[in-house]
């Protein structure tokens, strides 16, 4: 009996992860339908239909990655990373080559807009985990140069696209992975402090000396602090204001799916995408927003739980990296939608309409689930825990 209970608890993260993931995907489909002119009768609106196809593709990738031994991923980490960097550079080449009015952060593929930045997040985590694994106890800063470069190069390339919102997802992932990877708390804290100081410096330079940030980026920050200023009311502050109105007016139980005036009257721009949470708030009220928030928390706690259970360093680091990356993106999106942070264009994982983002998020969760299922026995000699790195053996597929 006790044993059964323990087994059940041991399986709990997988169960909760699957439940939360599918619930979020379902809510996403409903609200993409609701925000793209879908009526109550004909369920998939044309856009929702495309979204469903992408969810299906994403789930296929998810299932595939759950099945893949993640040791394979470790072997593939470097080529994948190189491929991602090549894509980002190709975007730059297109941009600098004067490709006319083409947008600069995605490739137009038939039926699909490929955003290398989204893929790059995952590739970076994989390579980072591989690079950090042997240096679990690294003490000197020199050892951290490689992880720093691995994260810094794609982050800078993406920031230059310019896609500041996506680029900002990298630093927390790096810090979390370093920390869990074993770097001293003091050092990680000093990196974090340096990062915050740099950000403040850039901000001050932009606000007071008018260098660094682009005009609209600066205005978004200014608008965050003065939402009612007439200069921003119809520009940078319009979206967050409308989002707040949508969420606030939803009340406790909302106005019903497809019934929200802000939604129906197209008051909230990007409502099927970055600001979809505003419409959830409007149409499902506090009940819906708390449900979605709890589902997200449940999903990421499950991921963290898998990382906790995984003793093998690469798997653990990948799981932590993915958890922190998705969770910070989610929290950032929710903070923007509820007016707690200035606007940066980032999507809400699993819910927003989107190709690359949805695909990457599902792939990431697939990898985490795979890490959890492919438990590789990690035999650490109990008598000498300090030297376990050298004693690790990785038998293939033991215990399945």
């Amino acid at each position, binding site marked *: 009996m006790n044993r059964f209970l323990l087994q059940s608890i041991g399986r709990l993260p997988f169960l909760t992860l699957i439940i939360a993931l599918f619930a979020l995907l379902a809510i996403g489909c409903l609200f993409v339908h609701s925000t793209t002119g879908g009526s109550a009768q004909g369920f998939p609106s044309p856009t929702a239909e495309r979204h469903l196809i992408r969810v299906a593709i994403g789930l296929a990738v998810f299932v595939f990655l759950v099945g893949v031994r993640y040791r394979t991923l470790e072997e593939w980490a470097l080529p994948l990373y190189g491929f991602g960097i090549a894509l980002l550079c190709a975007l730059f080449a297109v941009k600098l080559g*004067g490709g*006319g*009015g083409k*947008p600069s952060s995605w490739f137009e593929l038939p039926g699909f807009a490929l955003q290398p930045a989204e893929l790059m997040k995952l590739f970076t985590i994989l390579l980072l985990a591989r690079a950090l694994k042997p240096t*679990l106890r690294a003490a000197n800063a020199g050892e951290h140069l490689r992880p720093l470069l691995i994260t810094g190069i794609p982050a800078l390339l993406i920031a230059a696209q310019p896609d500041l919102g996506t680029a900002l997802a990298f630093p927390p992932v790096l810090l*979390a992975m370093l*920390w*869990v*990877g*074993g770097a001293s708390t003091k050092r990680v804290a000093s990196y974090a402090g340096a990062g915050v100081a740099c950000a403040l410096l850039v901000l001050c330079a932009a606000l007071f000396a*008018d260098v660094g940030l*682009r*005009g*609209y980026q600066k205005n978004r920050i200014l608008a965050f602090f003065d939402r009612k200023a*007439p*200069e921003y009311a*119809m*520009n940078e502050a*319009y979206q967050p204001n409308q989002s*707040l*109105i*949508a*969420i*606030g*007016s*939803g*009340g*406790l139980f909302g106005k019903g799916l497809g019934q929200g*005036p*802000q939604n129906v*009257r*197209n*008051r909230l*721009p*990007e409502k099927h995408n970055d600001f979809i949470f505003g419409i959830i*708030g409007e149409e499902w*009220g*506090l009940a819906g*927003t*708390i449900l979605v*928030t*709890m589902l*997200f*928390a449940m999903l*990421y*706690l499950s991921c*963290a*739980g898998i*990382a*906790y259970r995984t003793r093998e360093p690469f798997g*653990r680091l990948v799981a*932590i990296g993915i*958890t*922190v990356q998705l*969770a910070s993106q989610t*929290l950032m999106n*929710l*903070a923007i939608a*509820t007016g*707690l942070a200035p606007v940066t264009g980032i999507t809400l994982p699993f819910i927003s309409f989107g190709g690359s983002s949805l695909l990457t998020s599902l792939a990431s969760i697939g990898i985490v689930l795979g890490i959890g299922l492919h438990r590789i026995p990690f035999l650490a000699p109990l008598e000498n825990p300090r030297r376990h790195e050298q004693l690790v053996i990785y038998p293939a597929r033991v215990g399945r």
Partner: protein
Amino acid sequence: MARSRIVWLIAGLLFGFSAIALRLTWLQGFQWHEYAAREETHRCPLRYLPAPRGHILARAGEVLAQDLPQHFFVYTLGGIDDVGRVAAQIARAIRAWDGGLARDFPAALLEESLDRLRGLYRERLGSGVSIPPHPWISELEPPLAHHLARWLKKLPSYGRVPGISVAVDQEGGTIWIEPDVLYAGEAGTRRIERRLALPAGSLFGGAPPARGAPTGIAARLSRARALTDRDARQRALDMKRDLLLELPAALRPGAIPFDLVADVVSHPERYPGIRVRESLRREYRRTEAIGNLVGFVEPVARRVEAEEERAEAAAAQGAEAAAAALIILDERRGGSRDLPRLRDLYTFRDLRGEGYLWGDYIGARGVEAAFEARLHGIAGAVQQELDAFEVPVGVPRDGEAPIPGQDVTLSIDLAFSEYLHGVFAEQGVVAGSMLVGVPETGEIFAWITVPGYDPATLHRDWERFEAIRHLSPLLNRPAQAELPPGSTIKVVFALGALDAGVIERGTPYTCNGVYDPRFPTQLRCNNHNARLPLTLEVSEALARSCNCFFYHLGGKRLGSDRIRGILAGYGFGAPTGIELVGERAGILPAAWPELAAIGQGRFAATPLQLFRFFCALANRGAAPVPSILVAERRADAERLDFGEDSIEAVIAGMVEAVEYGTASDSAIGLHDFACAAKTGTAEWTSNGATSNLAWIAGFAPVKAPEIVFVVEVEHTSLHGGDAAGPIAARALEWLEAERGYRFDSERRSDAR
């Protein structure tokens, strides 16, 4: 160690999601009402419904003033002209381009260029002929052109720049404009100009730069755009204005053809920035006879401006702002943010009775001002869902109907008033007034002021009024003119002296023509030139209006203090309490009791005060408060302290005045009626010229008086009886002929 750090990360995650959950609980659980209200006001703004003012009716039900519906156009500068916003957006985009040269690129440059371009299309805008696109800025550097093209493509739907497109080729880029779209607001005003057959440009204005400053909307636009304070600029652009103010005077209220109104309502996209508003217009009966009594209304906006000016002036002098400002329900004016902005129906229900709408009228003068509280209705409002074009969708959801103001029925006999007004004109009276009323109740049925105004045409008459400004055409004379009462006041002193026992019936006094040899010109008597010297007692002194008798009475027997006491006791020196606002109190004499006794010197009374006194005399004591309303506020007549004998003595004097005294001339015509009257002539110096102020006051018939009259004629060379008497006689005649009074019965039966 790694595991404990993962636990810490989990704690961090939980903290983050809890923070979001708390924020959501705050927004949706606690601030729900505020955001719901904001959402609702976006979607269903309140549409205010003005309440019709009450009618003003004359005694027989003739409508003197009423509210009629009218349509008019309102516009917002920002809605009618997008060019400023478009230029600002493009300038922003250029500034955002990091090519390096454009950090301070000014929007004004683009705006000026777009304004100049519109001159090219002015003739064709709104004519129905579409204008092909036109290149605006060409030979842009390719990177900038690319940047702009990208920017244009990425613009969110709420920030679009209509009528602008960018074309990029090898040599560079060109920005094209679509005049029909870019200048759609001006095209709308042109369409209205064409429909109303107005000269081109009379609404929008905007003369080409060569021909001097722009006019009309264009001028307002350039003024608004020139504002450097961004809040003020936005307010100027958002403020709703009346398009009719831009129209020539000939096309004022109600002149907009209904099909044009219908077109603007049903095709709002063709008239950006212009909306139709239905309002009420005050329509007055066209008559000058009682204009000063009826008064007129003024826009609330003007009253508020005046109030603000007064408050500013008071503040400049360091004084406290006195009166409470009007509450405006539908607008929050720039400076005064403490005024409530009634955007939701709940607050509106609570406060609507206490305020005005911005488009309302408020009584400025006369009855309109006096009965403001009764005439002014209570505004209503409906909550109306609007679509993206601000066009109403479906039927209003909820609302409050306006409550019309109450009617006011005046006791004024309109036909009689118009007749009397004609008589004044026949007699060549340039300035004067007349009151005729019922002594028993104080009800006034003729209230004439000359020169008067016609409220219906007032706005066109200002130039005429300028020419006669020294005659104060806006003065409501019976209540507001403070005039030396002349000899009419002798009745008051005779009565007062008799009552006090200072003199008695039969106390003789001999008049030599000059009272005091030291002042032979000031204190003299030439009212009975043919009989000098003459010994007379009080009745005959009244009949012949002997000055010396009253010099003596005032100077020797009464004295200043008792004179003031008598006047105050009979209601002089204080307003009578009639319903009108702005009634004057007159001035009581402080010195020269001799002059005061014949109604001269520093001594002034209003015709209304005399009217009230003669009512009391006719009633033999009861002095009602004069009223211009039918059958209201009766039975509160104050009794003046008259002795029976004193009254009969005074009335005898007034009857004798008509029989053989100052009002007995057959040219006057009062002789035919059984009436008691007292004439008066005050010498008056105004503008360096001395003229007479002629009075007659009295009542008829003598025994049971049915009417009291007071006539006052200014700037005449005649004496009281000769100038004012005939008017009184004509009034009595008319009343006998048209209203069935019998004033002459006793006398005619005597003659037979």
